[in-house]
Each structure stands twice: as structure tokens, then as C-alpha cells.
């Protein structure tokens, strides 16, 4: 199993079980939703705005170019119109001039008018003056007025060309007028007067089209003197203002082919216009045309505003969508993570179940094995030592069998709790199964420390338990092995700790024992014994010896006690003391016991068949046998198969058997008796049985222990005790048998004390069956 998947509750020796996040490259990081969405959003927004601003800029350039071009085109048209209009005026004046030069003093003006060669008189006022500046003829009633002081008059004194004066205001109509003049010569070429015409200044800007020039455009006629002859913006017409002529018409290269409009703030009204000013070739005048930047770019500005609005709306939408996507993706990720966490939690739970004992929650054998191996690796690397404790509860089976499994489980849980409590955090307690616990003490290398731990555990476990409404005490036997002295691998360490534990049990339980080589040797013997004990039944190596029982009065043989012997092929005859505890502990006693009872039954029948008087055989029942749940059915089956008379078989139990659970024991006894078997109480007088409890059951036989009567020859107290026991026994059993009778004195005393039967070396040594 990989270390990363170590179960929960692992001790610090093991590695951290949480999986490390995988290291990822920068590209992976970008695809993480937390980063991807903002990054995509920013990229999209940047793109969107770049495109928008580009479009706006392109449109602006287009609008500017268009405005500039329009200005140039309109300006050229206007120039042509002005030139034509002035030429018309000049032409008309020339006709008048010629008419007067040819016609002398005659009023030629009317004639010219009749010819239709005058300018329309409702716009133009045409007049003629004499050499003194007096009006001599006019399309209006201006006769006898003098214009001698006027610019257009005096200007003609020394020249012969079209003159135009500054604008002047009609004193009656307040309208601004412009006047033009031509010199009239005498036949000799002397100055004879002038022909002049006046027109509303607004005439020259009447071509102002709001459709083309807007409300803020400008159309103007400018004199080379820097004075506006007329200027129009929208419907408003002005005349007479001065401007910086040089600034408006810089002395640029005259051969430049494509004069272009300039964007400038016009000095006369502060409006920024694409402005074009052009000098007229023939006249000292210039035309000015301007298109307001604001108006010309209005469409562009509207479009710009539209673009910006749309981009803003698009940005907000994109942000909203991105946010929603981000949210969704985030939720997806969350739920994925949650699912993964659940999976991990589940896996951890499974791990926990796989590596922990379900009952106590302690690490189980396989986990413990891992920990030990890990501990070994660590200890090896850092040259350290550690100890392993093998614990086995004493008398656990008794508790389990008598109080029930639930109580047994409670006991184990409580023991687990106490062990965990009394040990340090760094120590590990594990349950190997049954009532076996192991403790791993890392960095524990001092025998003194280990002693302390052992004592601590003994003390902790030794405190009373409250189970199934009873208070009881449990002890524990502990075996200790240490790395590396007692083994360098898990198996050896565990085995040796087990051996030491066994030794502790042999030394009387409720203690601890360190492993040593000698223990191992003993243990090997024991292991060998155990394995051959298992084979003994199959190989038919067991046999029964019998010790007769005699009637004290008649001296006749009344029966015999069956005694188990083991004829080992190598060791010879093995004494019961040498193998019975092992058989009892390992449970082999159940099969062996059945064999014993069956053999005894067959022997009784054999005796009957030989025609001998009925002899009863008594068989010992051990604790394990007595508490075996199959005891009664086994007995019934044996009785049936052998067909023996049950009253010829007597089962001997010791008093101590009754102590652990008196009620159950009584029940069992009753059932045995129901089968027709006899029951004897063995080793009577050796333990402190409460006599009052014994009278609750009527035994068939009561056997006084040999130790009671051993010294009756010398000890009067023992005599009294024996008598007392016999008299008490009478109330409990039919027949009183004394065991271990070795001398005649003893036999005589027993007879006197009205004991019924005796058994012992004085009469008979146990041995193989003797014929008749």
C-alpha cells in the first residue's frame, strides 16, 4: 500500500496521508477558471475597445478630410461666383462709361437701361457723376448729390480701373452697401466723372446655403485692406470689421496647385472652422469660406457617441456573461471538488476500516505490521532501538464464555481505551485479534523505562471493570521484545514477544517478561509439544490408566478413576501435568476429553461383557470442557453410541469450576444429571468454597482431596477438619470418597469417620487396565 493512502489516526511515524497537489506548469494555471475567465475578459475588452477606438479614429479622419475637401470645393465655387458677379458689375459700368464717353452730356443712363444693359435696379443703384462729383444721372432719385469726397470717386481721378470702396451704411435703411466705380473720360482722355453702382453688401453672400455651410459656417468678401466687405454666418450678415489680413492670407507660394483648407479659430467670432481664404486674381479682394468644425464633425461625434455607447453596452454584457460563466464554472469546480473530497473521504473510511480493528478502533494486524516495518526502517537508518509489547488478557476466555460475547467486547474496548490512555502519543497500540494486543514503543530502549511501561499497563488493566452489571478484575500478561537485540524483522520480534508473554503467563500471569534466548528454548519445546499433541489423537497415542476405588467396609472394588496418559513416540510416557495445561489452553482438551469419556464408556461395557460386577468409572472434566457449549450433546451422543448405562459413568468437576458463574454451572450440572450421569465434586476441601452454595445441588459423590487427610495421623486439627468435611459432605452428596489414601492409619481413621470409599496408593496405584 502506498504511504500517501495511510488511514486516519495514523501515528506520527507514518507519512502525512493528505495527497499533495500536483505541480502544474504556467499554462495549466491559465486554464484554471479563476484565471482563465478574467484573462479572457480582459483580452476581449481590450480587443473590443481597440477596434472601437480605431473605428472612431478612422471616422474622424474621414470626417475631417471630408470637411476640408468640402471647404475647398465650396470655396472654389464661391470664388467663381464672386468673380462673375464683379465682372458683371464691371461690364455694366463699362457700358455706362462708354455710353457717356460717346454720348457726351446726354442722359445716357435711361438709354442703357432700356437696352437692358443695367443691372436689375431693384438690387443695384447705378449713378453717374460729373467731374466735380455731382450726381448727374441715377436709377434712383440721387440727383445733385455730391460724391466728391468718396473713395470711389477720388480713386478714379488718377486711374482707369474698377474700384470698390469700403462698405458704407445707408443712413435710411441702415443696410450696408458696396459701391463700385469706373472712370468716364472726355474725348481728350480727361476726367469727366464716374459711373458707379451700389448694391446691398449681402448680395455677395446671398449664395450662403445653410444646407452646405450650416448655421456656423462663414462666407465673406474681404478687402486687401483687411476690412470685411461683407461676412455671413447663418442668417446674420456683417460688414466693416477688420481682420489680420496677413494671418488669414499668408503670402504663400502662388504656384501651389492645391490650396487646402486650414482648421483655425476665426479671429472675428472665435469659432473654429475649416477655413479657406483665396485672393481674387483680378480684384484687390479675397473670398473667405469656412465650415464650422463642430457642425462638420457633428455626424462624426454622433457616430463616436454611438460607438462608445455600443462598446460600453457590449463591455457590460461581456462582463456579465463572463461573470455568469465564471460562476457556473466555479460551481462546477466546487461540486467536482466536493465529489472528489467525498471520494477521498470514502476511500479514507475504507482505508480506515481496512487498517483498523472494527471493535476497538485500534490499528489492526496489517496496519501494525506496516508500522513495525516502518519503525524498523527508521530505527535502522538512525541506529535506534524500539520495543514491542505483546499483551494477552488472562482469563479472557472465561469472561467471554460466562458473561457473553457482548461483555467480552465491552471488556476489550475498555482495555483498548485504558491502554491508549496510559501510553504516550507516539506509542502505538494495536489489536491483533481475540484478546491479543501489541504495543509499539518507538525510541524505547532502556530496560528501566520498559519496566515502568509494563507496570503502568498492568496497573491500568488491573483496575476493576464494570461489565454486565458486575465488577470484575482482569489481568494481563505481557511479553517484551526489543529491536534489534531480539529480532530484526517484524515476525521475529512478534514471535519473541509472544514467547516472552507465554512465559509471563507461566510465571503466574499478571506480570511482564522480557524475551531472552532461554525463553525461546523453552518455548520451542512447548511448540513441539503442542504440535505433537495435535497429532496425538490421530496417532492413537493417548491411553487411560485407572485407579480403583474401594468400599471402606467391604473392601470391594466399586469403581475406578480414569486417568489420561500420553505415550509419546520419542518422549515416552508424558505426565498429564506436562501437557494438560497446554491442551486446555489450546482447546485440544475438547477432543481429547471426548475420547476419554468414550473410552471410559467402552471400558465399562467391556467389564460387563467379561461378567465382572458393575464397576463405575469416573472421568475428570476440565473448565474448558465444562463450559463447552457442545458438552451436553457430545455426552448424549457418546452415551447413545456406546449404549452404556449412564449411572456407571461419573463426571468429576472441581469446586473452582462452579465459582466463575455459579448459576450457569448449576444449570449445566442439572442437565448432565438429566442424562443419567453421576456427578462428583473433586478436590473438596482445598478451596474456600462457600459451603452454603454447595448445598443448592445434590452431588452423587464428594471426593475429599488427598491434602486434607495427608497429616491426619499426626494433626488432631486435621482429624477434626476431616470429620467436619465428611459430615458437611453428607448433606451434599450420597457417597463420600477420600482420595490419596496412602497409609493404613489414614484408612482406619476414615473408616471411623464413616467415609464411604477410598482411593489411593495404599490400595492401588494407577495403571493400565488389569484383568478382572
Amino acid at each position, binding site marked *: 500500500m502506498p504511504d500517501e493512502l495511510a488511514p486516519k489516526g495514523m501515528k506520527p511515524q507514518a507519512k502525512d496521508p493528505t495527497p499533495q497537489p500536483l505541480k502544474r506548469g504556467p499554462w495549466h494555471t491559465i486554464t484554471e477558471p479563476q484565471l482563465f475567465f478574467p484573462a479572457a475578459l480582459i483580452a476581449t475588452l481590450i480587443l473590443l475597445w481597440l477596434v472601437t477606438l480605431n473605428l472612431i479614429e478612422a471616422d474622424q479622419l474621414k470626417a475631417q478630410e471630408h470637411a476640408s475637401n468640402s471647404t475647398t470645393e465650396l470655396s472654389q465655387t464661391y470664388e467663381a*461666383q464672386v468673380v462673375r458677379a464683379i465682372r458683371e458689375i464691371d461690364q455694366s459700368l463699362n457700358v455706362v462709361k462708354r455710353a457717356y464717353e460717346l454720348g457726351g452730356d446726354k442722359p445716357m443712363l435711361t438709354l442703357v437701361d432700356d437696352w437692358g444693359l443695367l443691372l*436689375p435696379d*431693384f*438690387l443695384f443703384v447705378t449713378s453717374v457723376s460729373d467731374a466735380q462729383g455731382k450726381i448727374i444721372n441715377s436709377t434712383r432719385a440721387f440727383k445733385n448729390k455730391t460724391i466728391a469726397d468718396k473713395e470711389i470717386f477720388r480713386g478714379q481721378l488718377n486711374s482707369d480701373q474698377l474700384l470698390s470702396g469700403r462698405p458704407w451704411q445707408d443712413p435710411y435703411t441702415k443696410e450696408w452697401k458696396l459701391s463700385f466705380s469706373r472712370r468716364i473720360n472726355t474725348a481728350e482722355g480727361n476726367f469727366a466723372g464716374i459711373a458707379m453702382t451700389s448694391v446691398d453688401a*449681402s*448680395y*455677395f453672400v*446671398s449664395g450662403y446655403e445653410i444646407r452646405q455651410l450650416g448655421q456656423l459656417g462663414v462666407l465673406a468678401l474681404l478687402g486687401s485692406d483687411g476690412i470685411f466687405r461683407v461676412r455671413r454666418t447663418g*442668417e446674420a450678415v456683417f460688414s466693416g470689421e477688420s481682420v489680420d489680413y496677413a494671418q488669414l492670407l499668408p503670402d504663400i507660394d502662388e504656384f501651389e496647385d492645391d490650396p487646402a483648407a486650414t482648421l483655425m479659430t476665426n479671429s472675428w467670432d472665435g469659432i473654429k472652422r475649416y477655413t479657406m481664404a483665396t485672393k481674387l486674381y483680378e480684384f484687390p479682394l479675397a473670398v473667405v469660406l469656412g465650415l464650422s468644425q463642430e457642425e462638420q464633425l457633428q455626424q462624426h461625434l454622433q457616430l463616436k457617441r454611438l460607438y462608445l455607447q455600443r462598446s460600453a453596452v457590449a463591455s457590460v454584457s461581456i462582463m456579465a456573461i463572463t461573470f455568469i460563466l465564471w460562476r457556473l464554472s466555479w460551481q462546477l469546480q466546487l461540486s467536482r471538488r466536493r465529489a472528489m473530497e467525498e471520494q477521498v473521504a470514502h476511500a479514507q473510511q475504507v482505508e480506515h476500516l481496512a487498517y483498523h480493528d472494527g471493535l476497538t478502533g485500534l490499528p489492526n494486524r496489517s496496519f501494525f505490521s506496516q508500522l513495525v516495518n516502518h519503525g524498523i526502517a527508521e530505527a535502522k537508518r538512525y541506529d535506534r532501538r524500539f520495543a514491542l509489547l505483546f499483551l494477552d488478557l488472562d482469563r479472557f476466555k472465561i469472561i467471554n464464555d460466562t458473561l457473553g460475547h457482548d461483555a467480552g467486547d465491552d471488556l476489550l474496548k475498555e482495555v483498548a481505551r485504558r491502554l491508549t490512555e496510559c501510553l504516550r502519543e507516539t506509542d502505538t497500540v494495536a489489536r491483533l485479534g481475540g484478546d491479543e494486543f501489541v504495543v509499539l514503543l518507538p525510541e524505547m530502549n532502556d530496560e528501566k523505562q520498559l519496566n515502568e511501561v509494563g507496570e503502568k499497563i498492568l496497573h491500568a488493566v488491573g483496575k476493576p471493570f464494570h461489565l454486565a452489571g458486575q465488577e470484575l478484575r482482569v489481568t494481563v500478561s505481557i511479553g517484551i521484545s526489543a529491536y534489534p537485540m531480539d529480532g530484526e524483522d517484524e515476525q521475529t520480534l512478534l514471535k519473541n514477544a509472544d514467547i516472552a508473554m507465554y512465559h509471563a503467563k507461566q510465571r503466574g500471569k499478571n506480570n511482564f517478561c522480557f524475551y531472552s534466548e532461554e525463553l525461546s528454548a523453552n518455548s520451542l519445546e512447548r511448540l513441539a509439544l503442542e504440535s505433537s499433541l495435535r497429532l496425538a489423537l490421530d496417532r492413537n497415542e493417548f491411553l487411560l490408566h485407572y485407579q480403583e476405588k474401594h468400599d471402606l467396609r467391604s473392601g470391594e472394588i466399586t469403581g475406578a478413576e480414569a486417568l489420561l496418559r500420553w505415550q509419546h513416540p520419542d518422549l515416552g510416557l508424558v505426565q498429564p501435568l506436562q501437557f494438560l495445561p497446554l491442551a486446555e489452553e489450546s482447546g485440544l482438551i475438547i477432543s481429547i476429553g471426548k475420547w476419554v469419556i468414550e473410552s471410559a464408556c467402552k471400558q465399562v461395557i467391556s467389564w460387563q461383557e467379561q461378567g465382572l460386577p458393575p464397576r463405575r468409572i469416573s472421568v475428570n472434566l476440565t473448565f474448558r470442557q465444562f463450559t463447552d457449549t457442545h458438552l451436553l450433546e457430545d455426552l448424549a451422543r457418546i452415551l447413545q453410541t456406546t449404549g452404556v448405562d449412564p449411572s456407571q459413568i461419573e463426571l468429576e468437576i472441581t469446586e473452582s469450576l462452579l465459582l466463575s458463574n455459579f448459576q450457569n454451572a448449576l444449570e449445566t450440572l442439572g442437565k448432565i444429571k438429566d442424562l443419567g450421569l453421576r456427578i462428583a465434586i473433586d478436590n473438596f476441601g482445598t478451596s474456600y468454597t462457600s459451603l452454603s452454595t454447595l448445598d443448592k445441588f445434590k452431588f452423587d459423590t464428594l471426593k475429599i482431596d488427598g491434602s486434607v487427610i495427608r497429616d491426619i495421623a499426626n494433626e488432631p486439627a486435621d482429624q477434626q477438619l476431616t470429620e467436619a468435611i465428611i459430615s458437611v459432605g453428607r448433606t451434599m452428596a450420597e457417597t463420600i470418597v477420600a482420595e490419596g489414601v496412602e497409609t493404613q492409619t489414614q484408612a482406619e481413621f476414615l473408616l471411623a469417620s464413616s467415609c464411604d470409599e477410598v482411593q489411593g496408593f495404599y490400595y492401588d496405584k494407577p495403571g493400565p487396565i488389569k484383568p478382572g
Partner: protein
Amino acid sequence: MNYKNYKKLTRLALIAICLVVATAHSDVVVVVPADSPVSALSKKQVAKIFLGKSRRFPDGSRAVPVNQSESTALRNEFYFLVSGKSPAQVKAHWSKMIFTGRGQPPKEVGTDSAVKQQLAVSKSNIGYIDRGAVDASVKILAIQ
């Protein structure tokens, strides 16, 4: 000229006309020579001819407008009736027409009788006079 100004002027002009009509009982009529084939024109057609926008009658024959002189009240009344323009507007119109080279104003003759005289010169002529001045030499055009 914007719409608001136009309405204002229209209202002023209407009041002026009413005064003129009420006091002088003058009644302008559009006339052509008695032998002219034209007998009816729409107000718009008359306006076009007198504003220099059209040089022909609907039947395709030449139309030559004859104006009364600028000083007559009848002229202003006539222009207003057919085109809705004030004298200043009419002047501005012709100013623009002349300046941009698109046309010349109609020949001007002094009075109703001068108009009648002028009409007699050519079948193409068209003029306007006071109803009271109508005689056999001219034909009143029905204005639709």
C-alpha cells in the same frame, strides 16, 4: 429661414393684407394678353414664373413675366399671394438668383397701365394688375 420665423412673418403679412384689402379694396389679378391661349394657372405655377424658376407655361410655350415697379403696393401683395414671400424675401431670392447666375428678375414696368401696354407687345407676357384696371386687352387667369 427657420420655420418659426416663417410662421411669424406669415401671420404679420396676413394682418397687413387684411388691412390693405379692408382699406383700399384693392384686388390683384393675374393677367395675360387677351389672345393668349393660356387661361388658367395654379398659384404655384405663377409663383415659379415670377421667381425665375420657370420660363414656360404648362403647355410649353414661353412665359415672360412683367413686374410692377418695386415701389407699388400691388407688387408686394401679388408676391405674397402667390409665393407667401415678403418683399425682403423676394429681394433676397432674386439677390441669390442673380448672384449665383441662375436668372434675371422680370422686366419692371411702372403701373397697371404700363403692364397692360407691355402685355400687348407679346403673347408670351404675363403680368398682374388691379382688378379695377382690367379691360378687353387682357384676360384674367383663373388661379387654381
